[in-house]
């Protein structure tokens, strides 16, 4: 059973006939670290939302961790996402009105499974969050600060802690480093890979920065597998 398995996928936005995504085969093995390369507008975000179950494919099926995500009900897909997926976006990952620990713990509020996992590793949700934040190299002094006073790099680490809490089986990162300066990018990548390796999660890392390719088991060019892009059709 793979982390992600896509067969004969096609996706058109509602009311349009032209597919923005057409992928015949794509798999991500469990525990695999995959670098998905693609220019902006190549359909990366669309693919991620399909895997996340936020969008439904027009044709074909997507299996995530063995579950037919595209045929589940809306509520079941939301629950599945809460239980098994962790996300890190490019920017603005955090809720400004919550403190760092509450931000990290957020997925556990929507998933009993992840709350239980987190408690098993850390006792309480708060200690689990603290442990993760410390493991990601966030200084203790920063943990008590409001989100707005953190640097972008620090915010991304908090977001990563949130994606990892309760050990979801699949972590999806959508250009998480593009707003971090080069000096801190290296460190972020190391921490990310170390933590993912420790939790055993599969990692789907999307970026257009080829310099990051070297950290991954495998690298896939989205343009190469997306037949909609190959035929010159743009969304």
């Amino acid at each position, binding site marked *: 059973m793979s982390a992600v398995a896509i067969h004969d996928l096609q996706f058109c936005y509602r009311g349009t006939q032209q597919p923005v995504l057409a992928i015949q085969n794509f798999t991500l093995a469990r525990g695999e670290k995959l670098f998905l390369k693609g220019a902006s507008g190549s359909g990366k975000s669309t693919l991620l939302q399909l895997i996340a179950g936020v969008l439904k494919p027009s044709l074909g099926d997507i299996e995530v961790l063995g579950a037919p995500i595209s045929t589940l009900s809306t509520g079941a897909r*939301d629950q599945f996402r809460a239980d098994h997926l962790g996300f890190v976006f490019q920017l*603005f990952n955090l809720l400004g009105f919550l403190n760092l620990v509450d931000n990290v713990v957020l997925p556990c509020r929507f998933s009993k499974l992840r709350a239980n996992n987190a408690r098993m590793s850390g006792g309480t949700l708060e200690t689990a969050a603290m442990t993760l934040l410390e493991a990601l190299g966030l200084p203790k002094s920063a943990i008590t600060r409001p989100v707005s006073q953190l640097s972008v790099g620090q915010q991304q680490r908090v977001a990563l802690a*949130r994606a990892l809490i309760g050990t979801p089986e699949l972590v999806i990162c959508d250009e998480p480093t593009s707003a971090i300066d080069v000096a801190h990018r290296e460190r972020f990548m190391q921490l990310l890979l170390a933590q993912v390796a420790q939790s055993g999660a599969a990692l789907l890392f999307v970026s257009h920065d080829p310099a990051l390719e070297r950290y991954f088991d495998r690298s896939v060019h989205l343009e190469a597998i997306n037949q909609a892009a190959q035929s010159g059709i743009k969304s």
Partner: protein
Amino acid sequence: MNLLTLAIKSLRNRWFTALLCVFTISASTTLLLGVEHIRASTRASFQSTVSGTDLIVGARTGAVPLLLYTVFHVGEATNNVSWDSYQRYANLPSVSWTIPISLGDSYQGYRVVGTTDAMFLHYRFGAKRTLEFVEGQAFDNTESNAVVGSAVATKLKLSLGAKLAVSHGLGNVGFIKHQHAQQTLVGILAPTGTPIDQSVFVNLAAIEHMHEGFDGSARATAMPNPDESANATPKAITAFFVGLKVRPMALGLQRKINDDPAEPLLAILPTATLQQLWQLVAVAEQSLSLVTIAVVATGLLGMLMAIWATLEQRRREMAILRSVGARGHQIFSLLVLESMTLTLAGLALGAALVTILLTLFAPLLASQYGLFLSANWLSTRTALGLGLIFVASMVLALLPAAAAYNRALADGLSVKL
């Protein structure tokens, strides 16, 4: 931390707009509760201007004019009730007590009511309260003594023992003063919030005595009679209040008095006529309520606008919540909970505010306007008002909640800001 705490934390982050929202709702609430409480209190106090009296009897006129001049001291009687008729009814076995009153004189612009000590024994107002004295006591029926209402005593700075020269007629400055028959002030009444406060009570016989020799008033003229002293029997009175031994007999007696072949009289049931009179001001009452409802609606629309305005800025927040697994209906609930928190806070603050205002200003209203307000504003209608504000606000809250729900589903996880 559940959705409610999330909603509260999110609101706290936008505390200034949230606070403004709460203030708007609390202002509407305060207004609604205050207006309704004052309206109900005014109505209740009006309805019980006179209580415990089964019938008011005067010369034949309209029911409302009779009530107006006997109880509210507004307008004048056009005719009198003969002493004989009064005695005839006063002595009926079914009659428990009567209070004769004779109007038409004034003291410094205040109405003078010629009456007997029955007034202080039997007259009731409010919740069957009797007239109470803050100083002195009632006069007896033999002397030229006077009792004044609280407002008269305060405004004219009267104290016991003062000599009051009653003027004939109702002008502010009477044309003819009964200088020869000054009344000695023997009692000052406690405030009642009724026209009693504005009245001067003198002995009925004394009034009759004063008018000996006068002719030309609406009053039946008593011929001067040197044998008669202050306890002279009057020839006529303006009206009388009747208390019955058995209340249900009021209707029968009323019919009997109205059909009196000897003299054209009118008997009214004060409660019924008070209600009739209140209908005259019901339009004002209703328009006041309408204005209040409009203000409340404005307050709620203000809240709707404030929440709606934040939706655009919060698309990122919704996308984050969706990414960690929040379902569409949870986004919806979050917005509803936010509105609910604001509304409940507004209602609570409004209720607290109205209680404080009532406590602070009740003494002033009682002393200045004779309006007695309790700090307890809770009634079926005010509770209903609070409930309606809550329900209306929850209904309005569905709009931003639905908008947030739709946007969250459409945006998915990909809001770029």
